[in-house]
């Protein structure tokens, strides 16, 4: 492969993982946008999605094996539903009582929740790597020298669809409008008769469901997951959210893709051991230099 082809191939790989980051980043950004909380537990919710998907696959009857579309749909539906409910439950139990409390108290609680979830995942699925079944075996599209596996195109397309649906939901529906209003000014929204608590729950539901879908894709893409994968992916997705301007929904999508591509290139050219340092460095430099991200906080006209 020529250097240019390598470069483009790395970009493609980066785009795929970037789409997953973007899906997780949406959860961070939506929650931060509305209650200014860095939801540390979101990384764990994300990887829970992968575990649920795996469990669902294990429980499927033989007829619904690999390559069956319905198996896939069922896995995604249950993973998203499970994660969404988990997110709402966490918000109810751990964050809602602290609504009037200071922000750092919530942050510490969020870290506590993340610890508990990690521990629970480890207890249920064990501390060792879990291998994922290989979906879409051997199927790849080749464009000249580039290879795009079917899995990769599946990830890109399905996450794009989810993001478009979310975008449509936020822009066009009544609930979406209420959500935007609440993230703009919670007190004013409350005065206008918007049930802010419900909006916050919806935020957690959607964010966590998208995170769960991302987790399932992550598992299918890398074919192996462990209980602590969520932590690192979570931090990276948070970086993506900051990159796009935290609280900014389209920004999170762009940030995820940008981070994925940067990381893809970084991994291609730097030693892979330092790959994770790369994400953390971007995070630190961003927060210090451009805390409002590339697009800045979303402003509504």
């Amino acid at each position, binding site marked *: 492969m020529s250097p240019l082809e390598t470069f483009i191939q790395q970009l493609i790989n980066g785009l795929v993982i970037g789409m997953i980051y973007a899906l997780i980043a949406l959860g961070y950004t939506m929650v931060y946008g509305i209650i200014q909380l860095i939801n540390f537990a979101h990384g764990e919710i994300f990887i829970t999605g992968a575990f649920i998907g795996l469990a669902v696959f294990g429980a499927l009857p033989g007829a619904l094996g690999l390559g069956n579309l319905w198996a896939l749909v069922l896995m995604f539906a249950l993973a998203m539903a499970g994660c969404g409910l988990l997110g709402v439950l966490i918000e109810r139990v751990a964050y809602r009582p602290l609504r009037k409390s200071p922000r750092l108290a919530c942050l510490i609680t969020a870290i506590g929740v993340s610890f508990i979830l990690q*521990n629970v995942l480890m207890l249920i699925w064990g501390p060792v790597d879990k291998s994922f079944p290989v979906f879409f075996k051997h199927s790849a599209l080749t464009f000249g020298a580039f290879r795009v596996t079917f899995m990769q195109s599946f990830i890109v397309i399905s996450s794009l669809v989810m993001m478009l649906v979310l975008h449509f939901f936020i822009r066009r529906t009544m609930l979406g409008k209420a959500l935007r209003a609440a993230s703009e000014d919670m007190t004013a929204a409350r005065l206008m008769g918007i049930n802010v608590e419900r909006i916050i729950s919806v935020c957690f539901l959607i964010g966590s469901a998208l995170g769960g879908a991302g987790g399932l894709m992550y598992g299918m893409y890398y074919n192996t997951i462990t209980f602590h994968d969520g932590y690192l992916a979570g931090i990276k997705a948070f970086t993506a959210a900051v990159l796009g301007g935290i609280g900014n929904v389209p920004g999170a999508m762009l940030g995820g893709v940008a981070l994925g591509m940067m990381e893809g290139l970084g991994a291609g050219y730097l030693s892979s051991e330092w790959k994770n340092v790369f994400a953390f460095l971007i995070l630190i430099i961003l927060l210090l230099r451009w*805390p409002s991200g590339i697009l800045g906080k979303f402003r509504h006209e």
Partner: protein
Amino acid sequence: MNRRGIGLYQATKKIPRRAVNVFILLILFALPLFDRNQYHLEVLVSAGIFAILVLGLNVMTGYCGLLNLGYAAFFAAGAYTYAILNVRFGWSFWVSLPACIISAGAFGLAFGSCALRLKGDYLAVVTLGFGEITRIALNNMDSLTGGPNGLTVAHPALWLPHKRLAFGINSLPYYYLTLLAILVTVIIVSRLSSSRFGRAWIAIKEDEVAAACLGIHTGKLKLLAFCIGSALAGFAGWLFAGKQGFVSPESFDFITSIMLTAMLVFGGMGSIPGAIVAALALTIIPEVLRPLQQYRMFFFGTVMIVMMLFRPQGLFGGVRIFEEFRPESERIRQEEDEALGEDLRQ
């Protein structure tokens, strides 16, 4: 607190503080005479090292309000400084002490001077990233740090007249050394807390604008708190490396940082006895519940959540709560008053 609780509290107040402190100290010094169990002492030594760390974290988080989620990096700086000096240059344990404190302090100074322009949760995330970078770097700079295999370092030894007393793997000498180290740390922290620096730190965490308007150079004092907290972590790292005789990156991961934060939250921000009691309790409880070892993270997570939900000021706290931990609504009201106050009158 109920009425009886207040009565009890006032009764204890009549006993001079100093007498209580000396009494506790005597008990701690005499403890090995009654309990010679190596394992018990070992646990107490670990708890003691955590106590020093929590006291250091208390200076930056408890007093000055700077939440640090990468505190283990500064702990690592101290431990690795001794390890590298010992392995590569043959420095002895005692000679390395100043180097360990200075290197960790300098580490804190360098990082703090970049990061302290951020506040609250953003600062917390940056410190987290920094802690992770440090750990990954330790893991990958094999030629210097031995990578994931770590470094084996010399245990300390004392040269008494005519005799060399090696500490080895006996827990007893480390027990006394740790006790001494805690004593020194407590003296340092309590003197700082009652000095003009301590007052300025608390002023900053309570209300940064008001503090600046009183002539407090907030940037400089935050950096000082950060630097002293890091130096104390370096001190603990030095002790840890000497006691373990071995350092590896896994002792300094994110979980360690969070565990320390949990201890600080449990004992109460800004409380010296709180920091020590919490370090002891949260080290000993998981040891007692050894069969439930795999629930460790669950345990620490639960401690953090329960404390935040039901007693945010911690076991011993209650007097000094800081701005970042004060109800948001109150702060907003204050800012609004400031901005719109003129409209409220007349």
